[in-house]
């Protein structure tokens, strides 16, 4: 009985949470330009999305490309910078360590608007013209802390002697780094990269403030402008549906792999 | 009073999935006793404790408190309190509120709570710590608070689940003495779980030795030490020489290829037995008339109070001896054992017996695999059979994949001139092996048996 109510509660919440997503997904299979108006089943919107045969198609497609490119570049840089930083922070002691850890926490606590506004002011102050570069720099600044936080625990778990052991066995510091240290840190680096990547995909506010006036659009800013113009471009429906599906599949794959890894360990 | 049972476990069994944790446990605990459940990890001792405290329910059997079944009573209504393994002090409450937790739930008046908390804090010598945050306390102090928190509710029984395991040696010794004194002062029943045999011997009125879900022996510490009923108990409690022997007749036993007088009777004549001799019960002598056998000292180590020596007997066995005086390595010594000090035990088994099924005329299925055997005329495929294998005829291989069956060394005994191993197969079967090779507990092994060593007969039930 108790179990029944518990399950019922969970599923009611889930139905409510997913209703809008399902709603979008359903209406991605009809041609109507107005949402909620079912004009019969059609995969035309999907076709349009892939052939680019639609109104304003080039800007939507370039927005998707920008989103992915910015996420990829900023997550890669975040991963490198964050991993090196984590190794450094791990070897710091006392006050210095506290100070750097505190600084590292700031971008995570800061609301997007503050991050966006403050970076906007920075670029204005330094007279850097805003565009691709500034957006990527901004994304690196909020992505790297997540990499640092993913890699640091791996460093603490690591036996501190294994690096010395590698040196003792004749490895040069560079070999010890690549053959011993990096493989140990890899899981943390990968999850840090994934976090930074999705943070970047997700971001709207920071991009909004740092993209300047050159007409650079990511998916979120595109949607924002599009929605403000009144009514979403219908092709966004299949795009959103696909994104939901990809993320769901990714999450399930990651979790199943983790569960398996735990079992065999 | 001495005879009155406070707890009775009758035919209690418990499984988790297909793993049997407790198998038909029968046990009673007398009022006011200090009882210890002793055994290696996974033996079922903690499960037994959790059945009594009510966190687990038995699959079969019943648990009686003062003669009444308490199966239906949830843990919070049972008049017992537990000291948990890692104390489980509530980190959001200070020392005082941790101890007062149970009393507040019972709506005991404020001033009485205060009185009782103060009293119990004094009992555990923690009087000035009321306001301390529990996380700021040392392990030993947390331990005392955990005991105080349980005792303040005046339970009929105090359950202790390896309470000293997390403390260092010195602290553990001190706490043992304090626990013993507390038990004397309070007069309530203590049920104590530990894997530390020394702790059990020091603290208990009664020890219950458990292994693999079964009770091996129940007795006073002295009984358990001096008269272990089987090899497991002999090996688990204290140091011992466990040897293959043969009961010749009443009060006469042969082992290490010598004959000795002993005090055991009723085994029958010419029966294989196991013999236990404690290392401190083998004496050196210079009197040839007293000498029962000769040996050469091959190692001698100072152990603080005594010396531990390994000797090779003139008949090729290795024995451990403890004595206050050292004998030089290489010296030839004369030894004797008092009849009183020889503990003779029934052999639990003399060979492996497996249930199997013929696959065809030259193959038998058992232990979850197919073994090759000699042609078995008169047996058809599918016939149920009984397969006997002598301990020394089982071959162990270094790599699991080289054997017909894969397993792991689960338990091992040194028997003076060979090792007696228990192999646990991947399917959970036991295979017993005598070998001269040295293995360690936990080694992964492949198991093989030569076709000519399988003695197959038609199963009785078929």
């Amino acid at each position: 009985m108790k179990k029944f109510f518990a399950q019922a509660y969970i599923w009611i919440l889930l139905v409510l949470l997913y209703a809008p997503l399902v709603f979008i997904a359903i209406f991605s299979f009809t041609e109507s330009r107005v949402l909620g108006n079912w004009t019969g089943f059609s995969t035309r919107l999907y076709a349009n999305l892939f052939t680019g045969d639609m109104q304003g198609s080039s800007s939507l497609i370039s927005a998707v490309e920008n989103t992915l490119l910015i996420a990829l570049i900023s997550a890669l840089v975040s991963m490198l910078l964050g991993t090196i930083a984590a190794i450094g922070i791990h070897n710091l002691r006392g006050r210095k360590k506290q100070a750097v850890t505190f600084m590292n926490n700031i971008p995570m606590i800061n609301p997007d608007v503050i991050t966006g506004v403050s970076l906007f002011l920075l670029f204005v102050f330094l007279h850097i013209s805003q565009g691709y570069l500034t957006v990527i720099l901004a994304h690196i600044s909020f992505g790297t802390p997540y990499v640092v936080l993913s890699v640091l625990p791996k460093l603490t778990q690591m036996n501190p002697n294994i690096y010395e052991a590698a040196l003792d066995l004749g490895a040069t510091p560079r070999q010890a780094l690549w053959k011993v240290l990096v493989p140990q840190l890899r899981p943390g680096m990968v999850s840090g990269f994934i976090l930074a990547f999705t943070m970047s995909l997700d971001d709207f506010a920071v991009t909004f403030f740092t993209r300047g006036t050159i007409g650079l659009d990511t998916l979120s800013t595109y949607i924002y402008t599009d929605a403000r113009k009144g009514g979403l471009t219908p092709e966004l429906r299949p795009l959103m549906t696909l994104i939901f599906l990809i993320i769901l599949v990714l999450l399930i794959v990651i979790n199943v792999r983790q569960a398996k890894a735990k079992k065999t360990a | 009073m001495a005879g009155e049972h406070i707890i009775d476990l009758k035919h209690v069994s418990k499984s988790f999935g297909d793993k049997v944790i407790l198998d038909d446990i029968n046990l009673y605990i007398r009022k006011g006793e200090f009882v210890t459940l002793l055994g290696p990890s996974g033996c079922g001792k903690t499960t037994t404790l959790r059945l009594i405290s009510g966190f687990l329910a038995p699959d079969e059997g019943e648990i009686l408190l003062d003669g009444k079944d308490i199966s239906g009573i949830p843990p919070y209504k049972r008049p017992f309190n537990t000291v948990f393994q890692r104390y489980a002090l509530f980190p959001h409450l200070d020392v005082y509120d941790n101890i007062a937790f149970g009393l507040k739930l019972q709506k005991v008046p404020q001033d009485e709570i205060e009185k009782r908390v103060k009293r119990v804090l004094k009992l555990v010598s923690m009087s000035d710590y009321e306001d301390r945050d529990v996380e700021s306390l040392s392990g030993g102090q947390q331990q005392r608070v955990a005991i105080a928190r349980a005792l303040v509710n005046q339970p009929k029984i105090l359950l202790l689940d390896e309470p000293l395991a997390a403390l260092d040696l010195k602290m553990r010794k001190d706490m043992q003495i304090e626990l013993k004194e507390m038990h004397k002062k309070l007069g309530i029943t203590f049920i104590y779980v530990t894997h530390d045999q020394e702790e059990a011997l020091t603290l208990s009125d009664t020890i219950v030795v458990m292994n693999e879900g079964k009770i091996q022996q129940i007795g006073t510490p002295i009984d358990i030490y001096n008269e272990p009923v089987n090899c497991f108990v002999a090996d688990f409690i204290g140091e011992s020489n466990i040897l293959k022997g043969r009961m010749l007749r009443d009060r006469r036993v042969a082992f290490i290829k010598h004959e000795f007088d002993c005090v055991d009777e009723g085994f029958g004549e010419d029966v294989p037995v196991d013999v236990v001799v404690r290392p401190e019960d083998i004496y050196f002598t210079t009197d040839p008339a007293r000498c029962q056998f000769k040996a050469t000292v091959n190692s001698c180590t100072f152990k603080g109070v005594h010396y531990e020596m390994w000797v090779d007997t003139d008949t090729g066995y290795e024995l451990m001896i403890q004595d206050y005086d050292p004998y030089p390595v290489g010296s030839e010594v004369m030894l004797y054992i008092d009849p009183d000090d020889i503990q003779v035990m029934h052999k639990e088994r003399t060979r492996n017996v497996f249930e199997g099924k013929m696959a065809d005329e030259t193959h038998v299925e058992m232990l979850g695999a197919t073994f090759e055997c000699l042609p078995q005329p008169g047996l058809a495929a599918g016939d149920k059979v009984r397969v006997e294998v002598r301990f020394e005829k089982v071959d162990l291989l270094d790599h699991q994949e080289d054997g017909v069956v894969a397993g792991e060394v689960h338990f091992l005994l040194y028997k003076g001139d060979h090792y007696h191993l228990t192999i646990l197969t991947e399917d959970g079967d036991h295979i017993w092996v005598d070998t001269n090779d040295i293995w360690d507990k936990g080694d992964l092994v492949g198991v093989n048996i030569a076709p000519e060593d399988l003695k197959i007969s038609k199963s009785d039930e078929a």
Partner: protein
Amino acid sequence: MKRSHWSIPYVVFLTIFVVLPLVLILVYAFQDGSGHFTLANITKFFTDSDALGTFAVSIEVAIENTLICILLGYPAAWILANKELNRSAVTIILFIMPMWINALMRTLATAELFNMLGITLGKGTLLFGMVYDYLPFMIYPIYNVLNKMDKSYAEAAQDLGATPWEVFWKVTVPLSMPGVSSGIMMVFMPTVSTFAISEFLTNNKIKLFGTIIQENINSSMWNYGAALALIMLIIIGISTLFTDERKEAEGGLI
């Protein structure tokens, strides 16, 4: 080179891209358009009834949203962490997943759903949409803490005579407070600072504090925008003081 020096590039990066920008907010907030020191931006906020009103509404919406998220999310997190009531990892993934999808997209989907159902956009839909957006951020940290909580605390309480109900209120709830406070941080702050979301959910009827910051910056009123951002920073500073145990709850998003 000492290994601790490896943190230097990142420290430089953080100084330029995190610390300096925050200092610039402070600088711009106390400057007028021509770069002279002034308190005008701050006083303007306290005399501007529109801004004050928006501020009050933001705080109100954020508090309401946070409370609703706790009321709905705590039981959900508790059920998810309870092995007897929920054994499926998939339900947990389903609750986490919305955190990974662009909030703007989810908000638009919600707003469109309201439109189709003919529900007038306003305060009600704003709250509903906010709860919808932020509920997973409340559930996840609470679930994390409950899931990692040592079972022996609950057992110890039972052993001392607590009924399941008493165990819940006297042990489980107090011990899960780090999760709740981390959830509050992850819901309250973003609600106050959010922009765009409230416009879509109320058809521009209700503005939140984040929106007026954005509007000022976009219309080149940088100094006033910076002053408003500074005020928000101060609120964040105050609320982080109340919640300092967030780290243990947040670890391990994937």
